[in-house]
């Protein structure tokens, strides 16, 4: 078991390093700044916790949970990156991804995550439940972003589609593992964690390494707003307002 964990750990670090080196040589840092900030954080965190595990095993649980909790929040950077890349080229829906992310996060926090804080139970169980609920919220956000992109028939490209699929695989395995850990209890969940969580991370990193191997330019229409002979942003705003007025007039009829 020990050899298995360390092998997966080192393999994960190698994949993270590959992602960072490919981004450096291919200029991907500029295109995906939030995602690569997250990858850099994950690489540093994994490396430091690995060194603590080998050199000072007594401090490992504390450092692991500290890294794990920050990571739960840092993962929102991947969602922000995906939402920016899907919607940013289109001025009328530029903020739609962030709007969806904020709305779903707020709704789930109030109705789903907050009630878990109000229950009295051991801190380890509370932490597992919090992680489970946060992961499920992220899964809902990523599916909602995919649905919104599909609705508007927006081309995603290999980079963003790979980011989404890799993250969904990771979240799916996390959700199942955390739910199993809650149900099977303390005796079994250490074993589940040791096996499943690194597996989820490795699958996700493999998907990301393939998807982010090189930057892909997404084909869009041959012209853009504001180009000579084409519509300006002001004209787009005017036309959106006009369609709204038409519809409002109809509804108020």
């Amino acid at each position, binding site marked *: 078991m020990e050899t298995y964990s360390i092998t997966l750990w080192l393999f994960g670090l190698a994949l993270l390093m590959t992602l960072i080196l490919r981004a450096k040589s291919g200029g991907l840092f500029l295109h995906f700044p939030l995602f690569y900030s997250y990858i850099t954080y994950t690489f540093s965190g994994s490396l430091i916790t690995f060194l603590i595990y080998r050199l000072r095993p007594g401090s490992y649980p504390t450092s692991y949970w500290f890294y794990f909790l920050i990571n739960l929040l840092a993962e929102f950077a991947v969602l922000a990156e995906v939402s920016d890349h899907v919607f940013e080229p289109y001025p009328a829906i530029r903020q739609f991804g962030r709007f969806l992310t904020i709305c779903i996060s707020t709704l789930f926090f109030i109705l789903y995550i907050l009630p878990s804080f109000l229950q009295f139970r051991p801190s380890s169980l509370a932490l597992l439940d919090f992680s489970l609920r946060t992961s499920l919220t992220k899964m809902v956000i990523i599916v909602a972003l995919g649905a919104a992109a599909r609705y508007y028939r*927006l081309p995603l490209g290999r980079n963003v589609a790979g980011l989404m699929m890799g993250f969904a695989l990771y979240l*799916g395995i996390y959700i199942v593992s955390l739910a199993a850990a809650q149900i099977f209890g303390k005796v079994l969940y250490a074993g589940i964690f040791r096996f499943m969580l690194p597996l989820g991370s490795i699958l996700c990193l493999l998907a990301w390494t393939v998807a982010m191997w090189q930057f892909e330019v997404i084909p869009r229409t041959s012209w853009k707003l504001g180009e000579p002979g084409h519509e300006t942003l002001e004209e787009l705003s005017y036309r959106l307002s006009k369609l709204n007025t038409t519809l409002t007039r109809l509804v108020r009829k």
Partner: protein
Amino acid sequence: MMPLVAYVVIAVLSILVLALLVRKTRLDEPSEAAAEEEYALGLWDGQCLNLSERIFDSADYRWLRDELGFLHLARSLARSRKGLAIRWLKALRGAFEDMVCIPGEVSSGGNAGAHPRSWHLLWLTLRFHLALGYALLVVRLFGPCHRLIPPFDWRPFIPESSSREGRYGMVDLGDLD
């Protein structure tokens, strides 16, 4: 054990649904409303708006039903108008989505909040979708000649414009189906 099964189902379904959603989208893939394109012709020069006024105007329905007494013909007209109204609303949505998906300049580094008007444009987009969804629902349920906003006639403090009522002649078609 049931919660675990539920979480497994949620996780697997989410991954499968996402895999279907992120399939490659072809730029030339026709939208749902592309077939209704002719309805949106002349959207910006007033022709399309005249068409909508004719579709949603219930005067001829009232004339058939009340003055000539042709109930069967009136019902038939209401049914065909309902189909026309739905197609017109879908065409409007298609025109709107085509416009919304026009790309603009993107700042390098992915600063999505760079343009101050982007939240205003998003508000217009969401408002349109809400109003359109509501209009489609009412038209599907009651037909195009039905009042889209409830009249609130029982509230005497809301003034009712007689000229507007005379022009459009509101009729409740709820009893026809």
